[in-house]
């Protein structure tokens, strides 16, 4: 696989990202010409040109003058350029959860780690750079991802990365975008072992963190005669959430679990982004009212088998009750498929999160979404790009192809939702990777 490996430094007034090989202002520009450019807002520029330098898009349009020092690639009017897809909560590169854990001496008092309380863990420190997903994701059009960790109730923090295979490690855009939370019980025999236990535990953690914060505050404010607070990385990691500087990235699917998150939010007062949210459409109005965005999963239900049964084949006789069962099943299937469309319709901000879904399923399921739900291609593209960028707080830097935006986009051989669409180039933060063409038999 060929690739151009060059790291640039990106400077914004409010943000500084350093990398190992940074040097300033000397890079030549690069450009694609004669390509079809699809922007996140649904516009298409045919025979367009896109120019970028130092990781930033400098020019885009139909009749654009290309700087003299730009290295130009000619798309011959057959290539399609899309804003880089953003995964709002991916588990790529996360260490796996340890299996067959031992029962603690006191199952009711297992300690933070064993209970699945690990908000201090950082993907940037634990990233497995040889993860296949990190090298495959760019081929599917992903250039940016908020990476979380696998685990239970509080698996760790969420860090935002540009995705570029092994180099991802050095492409950290922001540490601590949020903290992942789940209503997930501890493994094996340990507290909390139930949803209600997880909820109580979360409350207690907030109580403990509040007390610790208070003690730290007192300790700092008096000169003597006060016991030093005992450092606690776990509780301290929760401060940003308690102080509303970071949201919880709360992974929940069912309507009732979303209601449970609302309840916790009312009590504990945190900001929250719903991740996955397979039944979020059932709470769309309240999500809208609470201004809670959803990073939606596209892990769609399996289509009921009978829907694709061959009519010629021997089928069991369809009894009346079977017919009713099937009708209701189909209704449920269709409703679940409409999740994202319904949310968008209700005015909920919807981005995308793979959250453990296999990369190979992503393109497959996007096609199902397009065919079976009311989401059009444009809406799907927007969800994968601008909307996710908005939710992550990067609406002006990521998520679209426009002048001044970070140069993260993907060049496909045909519109990305079409069959046999392949990524030919991935430009991540201005760095171009060229992919080998996969043989057409595949």
């Amino acid at each position: 696989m060929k690739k151009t490996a060059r790291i640039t430094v990106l400077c914004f007034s409010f943000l500084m990202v350093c990398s190992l090989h940074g040097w300033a202002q000397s890079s030549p520009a690069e450009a694609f010409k004669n390509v079809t450019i699809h922007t996140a807002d649904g516009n298409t520029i045919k025979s367009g040109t896109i120019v970028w330098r130092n990781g930033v898009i400098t020019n885009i349009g139909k009749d654009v003058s290309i700087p003299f020092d730009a290295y130009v690639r000619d798309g011959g009017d057959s290539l399609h350029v899309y804003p880089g897809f953003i995964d709002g909560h991916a588990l790529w590169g996360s260490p796996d959860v340890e299996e067959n854990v031992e029962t603690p001496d006191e199952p009711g008092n297992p300690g933070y780690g064993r209970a699945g309380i690990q908000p201090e863990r950082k993907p940037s420190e634990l990233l497995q750079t040889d993860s296949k997903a990190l090298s495959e994701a760019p081929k599917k059009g992903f250039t940016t991802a908020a990476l979380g960790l696998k685990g239970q109730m509080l698996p760790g923090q969420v860090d935002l990365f540009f995705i570029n295979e092994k180099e991802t490690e050095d492409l950290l855009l922001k540490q601590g975008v949020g903290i992942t939370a789940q209503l997930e019980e501890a493994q094996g025999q340990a507290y909390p072992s139930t949803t209600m236990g997880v909820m109580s535990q979360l409350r207690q953690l907030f109580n403990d963190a509040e007390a610790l914060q208070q003690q730290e505050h007192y300790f700092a404010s008096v000169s003597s005669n006060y016991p030093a607070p005992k450092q606690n990385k776990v509780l301290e990691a929760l401060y940003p959430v308690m102080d509303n500087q970071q949201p919880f990235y709360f992974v929940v699917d069912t309507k009732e679990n979303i209601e449970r998150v609302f309840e916790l939010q009312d009590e504990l007062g945190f900001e929250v982004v719903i991740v996955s949210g397979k039944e979020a459409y059932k709470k769309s109005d309240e999500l809208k009212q609470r201004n809670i965005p959803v990073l939606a999963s596209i892990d769609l239900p399996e289509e009921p088998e009978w829907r694709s049964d061959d009519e010629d084949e021997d089928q069991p006789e369809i009894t009346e009750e079977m017919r009713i069962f099937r009708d209701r099943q189909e209704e449920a299937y269709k409703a679940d498929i409409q999740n994202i469309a319904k949310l968008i319709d209700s005015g909920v901000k919807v981005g995308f999160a793979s959250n453990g879904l296999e990369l190979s399923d992503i393109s497959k399921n996007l096609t199902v979404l397009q065919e079976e739900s009311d989401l059009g291609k444009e809406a799907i593209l927007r969800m994968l790009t601008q909307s996710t960028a908005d939710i992550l707080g990067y609406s002006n830097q990521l998520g679209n192809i426009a002048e001044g935006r970070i140069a993260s986009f993907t060049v496909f051989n045909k519109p990305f939702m079409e069959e046999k669409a392949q990524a030919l180039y991935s430009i991540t933060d201005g760095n171009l990777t060229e992919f080998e063409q996969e043989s057409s038999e595949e």
Partner: protein
Amino acid sequence: MMKDTEIIMKYLKSTISACLLVLLLGMSVEAQITQKAEIGKFAITNATIYTVTNGVIENGTVLIENEQIVEVGNDVDIPSEYEQIDASGKQVYPGFFDAGTQLGLQEIGAVAVTNDQAELGDFNPHVRAFTAINPSSASIPVTRVNGVTHVISMPVSGRLAGKATLIDLYGYSPDSMAVTPNAGVHLNWPTSKKGGWWDDRTDEEVDKEYKEDLKKLNDFISRAQFYNKMMTDFENNPSNKEQPDMNKKMQAMREVVKGEIPVIISVDAKSDILNVIDWTKDYPDMQFVLAGVRDGWRVADEIAEAGLPCLVSTLYTPERDYDNYQRPYQNPAKLHAAGVKVAIATGGVENVRNAPYHAGFAASYGLGKQEALNAITINAAEIFGVDDKLGSIEEGKQANLFIADGDPFEPMNHITDVFIRGHKIPMVSRHIQLYQQYLDRGAKTN
């Protein structure tokens, strides 16, 4: 050795304590335990007699002599030596028959050492419930004072769980209780369906497992058929033949493959029932009875056509979350309407005493009282080939009957007298004894 009274005196002298009083109370219980069953000549008079097989006789008399019913009717001369039991305003029924239980095989569910219904191994036609029936099980008196006089008790584990036994609920040994020591062999039908959300096998794995299980079962039976034929040939004409080696399991299968006792097949899901129906056609010489049959109402016609009797209950939650709430209650009625012979089988142990209420629900939800009565008496007797002596109040049949102060399907009503094999059973059970002891604890005790 000190006599009991001396011991008591010793205690009395030493201290007046709570222990003593408890002991005294315990003694009075002791006295009731020693109450014995009576056998002899009894005349139940002025009764409404539900004969089951010959309608209802108002103001009738039943004469019992030793183990038998000697006369039933309106105009019965009562010889003077008969002890009369006035049943005015009361009803008399044949003893109820629960056609599928584990009574006598298990004492306390959670105490494994008291559980004798589940032997290890997949194919155990040679293990017999009869062997492990505990005549002293506390559950037996508890059951019989509610009018249940006969049960099929069966082993439950593995594929061929073992031989079920038909016992009555009075006796000091399995031998005295057994009506038919080997009443059938219990087969747990291998399911071809996934179990539910907890079952994470793929469809292919499920199918493969089913086929393997079925093949093992068929192989086992065909070996048994071969063994039976070989032994029969040898027995008929042993000359010039070398005597085959004995095989206990195969030997135990002989009465099964010959069709002398039925295979009781536990099966519930619709597709499994259909599979069973198909399967039984491969063994025309054998006898089959279905048990459980919770999806039976879905395939009642098919079951009727195959001529398979069904052992069913009513007090369980619907099999599938999309079923109508009444299906368990209606299952016996729907099977009966299609022409299936149904009998009540609770599948229970300590609460087999609720068998009348299973039948009551069946009666209430479409089966009607007469058919429900049949299901808990004569049908079971017919299915297990003992209707010549059990299942109805008829002259010449065994005296298994009880007297109730009303419809025994009503949980509110009471059973006042029970006869098993002519024995007038003491109306005593642990539950009744504790009631008598504690209703009013009497003297001020702490």
